[in-house]
């Protein structure tokens, strides 16, 4: 009985130590955190310039534009997940630790979401306003981002773990990860569109929640296997 309690406490220890380490390191290079957000804003700005500044049209494409941009911004931020840990050798220490790799990975993905998905969610109302999205639509956008971006972090982490040992990873990573992002994109932008049309979005949110649950359960297994493969070279 006591042994079990001990193990649990230690797991918590590594989980928190991991988050603390990644947060501290990230906040000492704040530009890495802000760049994906700037990217998000710039990409969204391009659409009115490329298509039309007309409010009716922008309102109609807003859910898709905002979600695709958020997705691309997340994709760009995947670099910070495992790449630097691989280069400085701390990733192999993580694998060689007696602590369960599962806890470390969960902590890393959670930190990634805190530093990328959550800021994107908080920034989104501003951009929604620039694209003339209605209040209902904005609310739905924030809810879907809140549920959807963690899934993007989990799936992205699988791709990132698979490519971490390779030299030119950027393009390959997007090729691996983007097709897997499709269901999230469909359900999330569908929810925002439904909200604009005044339809209920509980069903959409439930589907996104189911995807999140699935990702929490399955992705860490895939990520830890992928990390072991990438480091075995």
């Amino acid at each position, binding site marked *: 009985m006591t042994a079990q309690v001990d193990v649990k406490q230690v797991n918590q220890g590594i989980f928190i130590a991991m988050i603390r380490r990644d947060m501290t390191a990230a906040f000492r290079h704040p530009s890495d955190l802000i760049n994906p957000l700037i990217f998000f804003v710039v990409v969204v700005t391009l659409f009115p310039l490329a298509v039309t500044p007309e409010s009716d049209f922008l309102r109609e494409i807003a859910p898709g534009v905002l979600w695709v941009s958020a997705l691309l911004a997340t994709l760009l931020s995947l670099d910070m997940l495992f790449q630097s840990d691989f280069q400085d050798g701390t990733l192999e220490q993580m694998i060689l630790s007696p602590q369960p790799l599962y806890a470390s990975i969960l902590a890393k993905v959670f930190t990634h979401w805190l530093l990328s998905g959550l800021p994107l969610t908080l920034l989104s109302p501003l951009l929604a306003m620039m694209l003339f999205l209605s209040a209902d639509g904005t609310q739905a956008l924030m809810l879907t981002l809140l549920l959807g971006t963690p899934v993007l972090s989990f799936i992205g982490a*699988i791709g990132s773990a*698979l*490519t971490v*040992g*390779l030299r030119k990873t950027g393009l*390959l990573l997007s*090729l*691996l990860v*983007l*097709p*897997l992002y*499709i*269901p999230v994109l*469909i*359900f999330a932008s*569908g929810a925002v569109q439904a909200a604009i049309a005044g339809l209920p979005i509980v069903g959409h949110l439930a589907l996104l929640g189911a*995807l999140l649950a699935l990702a929490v359960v*399955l992705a860490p297994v*895939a990520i830890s*296997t*992928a990390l072991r*493969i*990438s480091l*075995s*070279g």
Partner: protein
Amino acid sequence: MWRWFHKLGSPKWFYAISGRWLPWVAVASILLLVVGTVWALLFAPADYQQGNSYRIIYIHVPAAFLAQSVYVMMAVAGAIGLIWKMKLADVMAKCCAPIGASFTFLALVTGAVWGKPTWGAWWVWDARLTSMLVLLFLYLGVVALQSAFTDRNQAARASALLSLVGLVNIPIIKYSVEWWNTLHQPASLTLTEKPAMPADMWVPLLIMVAGFYCFFTVVLLMRARVELLDRERRTGWVKDIIKAK
């Protein structure tokens, strides 16, 4: 059972037995494909709605079948390689990827060709076609990852894992795409859901499907044999073969 499994995993045994099977499967695939094609193009009746343009299903449907089942096969072979470290499974998974991608591409092209007379456009965002396109992306990802590693063992294990992740995702992607499709356009005429196809139409289709499977087996075995020889070139049995030639 276990012994059989191990025997199957032995490259030497596989090379010998596949060499014996290969000609027979090749003959079967040629026979099936010729009979199926002739029947489909000359003897099967024209469709009352679409006329003769429907005949492309005799390539489109088998290709789409193969595209999906090859992916499953690749993922299963990959899982076997990943878990039991069976070299032969790695080889199979690696050889499946480009073949499956080709079938997917063929299904897409024939779907587009069929779409022109039916919908009046080369491409429509039909649920099946869109899922097929995403499947092609998944295949291309596996192939790209496979070729990105210099170490063979790593390449095999990484792409096996990716194809397993893809396998879990395929039903979700399919479901989401269908859901998206019904939301945006009403269900239109689809190629494969035909009420009560007459036997004259579906029997040649069945023959074509069987022919495609045999053809796939032939290509897979040929690729796997070459890959095996390359991997095992330092072992005794490969040196024996080279000496014998």
